[in-house]
């Protein structure tokens, strides 16, 4: 059962990841050719980011911020090569936006849950 729960967890994470990719693809208006070159680079970038988050727990806050910047700098030339400077700028905004969209959904749900409670009063 534990293994199944883990599998379930991975499947959910994959679904969110798929949503994120769809979101970024639309924001950056990637063509299928660009997507083919872009996603392998982005995947590597994400792996580095995950590693940074794991190390972050005990690290100095400023150091971890610097680490984040360093990773982005490291991948900057590759991103520019594949999607160009303007869209690379958009990329990190799109990442933030996606998180914003997820938050908005959470917020809406909270509201919907609260409303019946208000009506009961």
């Amino acid at each position: 059962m534990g293994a199944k729960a883990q599998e379930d967890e991975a499947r959910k994470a994959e679904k969110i990841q798929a949503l994120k990719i769809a979101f970024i693809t639309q924001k950056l208006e990637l063509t299928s050719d660009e997507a083919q070159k872009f996603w392998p680079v982005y995947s590597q970038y994400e792996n580095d980011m995950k590693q940074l988050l794991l190390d972050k727990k005990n690290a100095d806050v400023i150091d971890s911020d610097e680490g984040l910047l360093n990773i982005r700098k490291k991948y900057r030339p590759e991103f520019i090569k594949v999607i160009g400077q303007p869209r690379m700028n958009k990329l990190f905004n799109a990442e933030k936006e996606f998180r914003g969209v997820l938050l908005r959904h959470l917020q809406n749900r909270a509201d919907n849950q609260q409303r019946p409670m208000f009506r009961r009063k």
Partner: protein
Amino acid sequence: MDHSIEILLELKQISPFLSEMKKVNVFSVPPGYFTNLDQQILENTLTHSTLSLTSETHNRDVPAGYFENLAGNILEKIKKLQVTEPDELIEQYPLLYSLRKENIFTVPENYFEKLPEEVLGALNQGKVRTIGKTRSLWNYAVAATVTGLIAISSLLVTNTSSDNAAQNGMAKNTVPEYIQDSYQYKNEEAINEGIKELSSDDIIKYLEATANDTDNEAFASGVTEKGLPDQEEYLKNEKTLDTYLNQN
């Protein structure tokens, strides 16, 4: 003679004129006719001017070498003849008239020298045809191979699940599954629908696990469903979320 009388009577009936004729030998010849005949013939021919072989004809000898040059002379005369163009030909058959001096049986230059090569070339083209036949055999061979491959691969797919898993693994290597999944969210609406299918817990877990921005991190860790602003408030003011973020 009874016999002759009967014939005579019959003849009278058929032709009275003939029966009345006297019986005379019509083929009689004057006496001594044949004795002088040869003399008479000779005299007659000699005295006849047109047929007489006089000394004149004998004297008019053929010129020397007449017969040797005869053929040449005739040809020369023909050549010398000015062939006058018949008006009829010009008027009625202008095409034929224009063609009269043209040699229509001409052959291109070096035609006969090249002829053997051309014939050999044509024969070689015949060989190409045979290659074409073998090519069609190739088609059959390829078709048979493809059919065989399909049959074998279908057997492998249905029989061995391990092969199937291996194929899936290959597909994962080429295009990650989450990227393939992303194709189903064609627009923003589809993405929103996809997010709605997620549980709040899953979203919060994801935001926490991937919080790489100081702003978002603070928000994601501090978010509680009940503490969020009201939806109406959010609709009234776009910056509601930002103010909420700043408050926390």
